[in-house]
């Protein structure tokens, strides 16, 4: 069984979760060694950028993994999401530049985002026409420099939004980290999967 651990903001909570679930997870030293693959306790742990977890699971290069719902939606992942985890909670918000009018009032608003697919689906569902400018990071800057009137981004503490005096107008999606398991794995290794799901659900409950 190969499990993909998301590097970045979800890494530590994920490792703690699996430890809580009784797994022999990679140690600090392992992680520091810059190696990416660790075989421990019968599980092959791989460290992958958080946005890549859904791709590794989709292509069967990993059986399971932990990823934020934002990445699952952006990659249109078909994997099962059996366990909603108690960390990584945040909101995908429509954020407006200071004094910018509501989205519907603008004829062709420009929206900067790291999530073009989620933005397009949400805008379609609201029948709103907009130009989407995909960016790699610090999306708020686009609104600050009024390159765009709005941005769609993850808001955790809301501090970045406050610093730049931006306005949170609408919730696009409630986000949380999720345990995902490849569709095919469910079919080809049902017992192993059931055990993983049971132990992780229990650990998640305990931690909540």
């Amino acid at each position: 069984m190969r499990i993909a651990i998301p590097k970045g903001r979800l890494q530590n909570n994920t490792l703690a979760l699996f430890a809580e679930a009784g797994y022999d997870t990679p140690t600090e030293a392992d992680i520091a060694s810059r190696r990416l693959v660790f075989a421990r306790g019968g599980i092959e742990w791989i460290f992958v950028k958080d946005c890549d977890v859904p791709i590794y699971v989709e292509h069967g290069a990993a059986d399971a993994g932990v990823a934020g719902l934002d990445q699952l939606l952006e990659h249109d992942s078909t994997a099962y999401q059996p366990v909603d985890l108690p960390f990584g909670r945040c909101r995908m918000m429509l954020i407006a530049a200071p004094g910018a009018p509501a989205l519907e009032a603008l004829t062709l608003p420009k929206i900067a985002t790291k999530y073009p697919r989620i933005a397009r689906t949400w805008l379609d569902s609201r029948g709103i026409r907009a130009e989407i400018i995909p960016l790699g990071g610090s999306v708020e800057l686009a609104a600050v420099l009024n390159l765009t009137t709005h941005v769609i981004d993850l808001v955790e503490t809301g501090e970045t939004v406050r610093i730049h005096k931006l306005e949170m107008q609408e919730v696009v999606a409630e986000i949380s980290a999720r345990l995902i398991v490849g569709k095919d794995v469910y079919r080809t290794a049902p017992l192993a999967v059931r055990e993983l799901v049971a132990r992780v659900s229990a650990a998640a409950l305990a931690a909540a």
Partner: protein
Amino acid sequence: MGKKLRYPIGVRPLLIAESARRRRVEARIVSILDRAGFDEVILPIIDYAEPYAAAGAIDSSQTYRFVDRDGDLVAVRSDFTPMVARALAPAIAPGDLPLRVFYRGDVIRYRPSRLGANREMFQIGAEIIGDGSEKADIEVLSSVSSILRELGTNPIIVFTDATLPERIDPVAREWLATKRAPAGAPEVVKRLIAGTATTGDLPHDMADRLDAISRACPDCAIHLDDVDRARGYYTGLRFHAYDRASRSTIAQGGRYDDLYEKFGASAPAVGFTITCE
């Protein structure tokens, strides 16, 4: 331009070695189907898109569609099953049933998400038309199993009933397709997700049928919670076959008892399609 040196993304010729391997596999499958009494039908490469859209049989976002010179929307073959139904329905006389047919050829699917993924896939499939019984389900499952073994693969075959979610709860499909149910969901849904549910939890008719199939096909496993986000045209048995090594889907199929009706001949049908990369 360099670009034109290559083929449209995902479409490619098979040179000598690969063609030989493809034809060997094809010949062995066809001989098994022949021996099992299946007759071949040959389907056209292109067809109108409208009859399939009307029958909700094909996901248009995955097909190569274009407007032909008569102004009609035409699609390149992307899924054999609805085409067999449309070809045979008008020609079926009650006396002909049950009918065992098979088909083979290339289908082309457009998968935007995977840049350059192979779109052209060679498929061989077979169907039993006109026999709604579990006997036919069992014959199809055992045919797939024996064919895949003949080809030297060690298949994992899992099956369930495509209508299971709706028979439990109108919203069950969404929960089972993501394997996450809210606290208030029916107990059976939670047991399904946890994998502790058994056919005993299901409506009797469905349970008996799945058990009968299970008994008759020892090397096929019931996965009650093997649920897709959309039921498609499946109305009963629904199965996937995996290559134990590569874990990739090598065959799939099931029962579609109301597909032929959409093309003018109310006949139940059950079949499978093997994809040879």
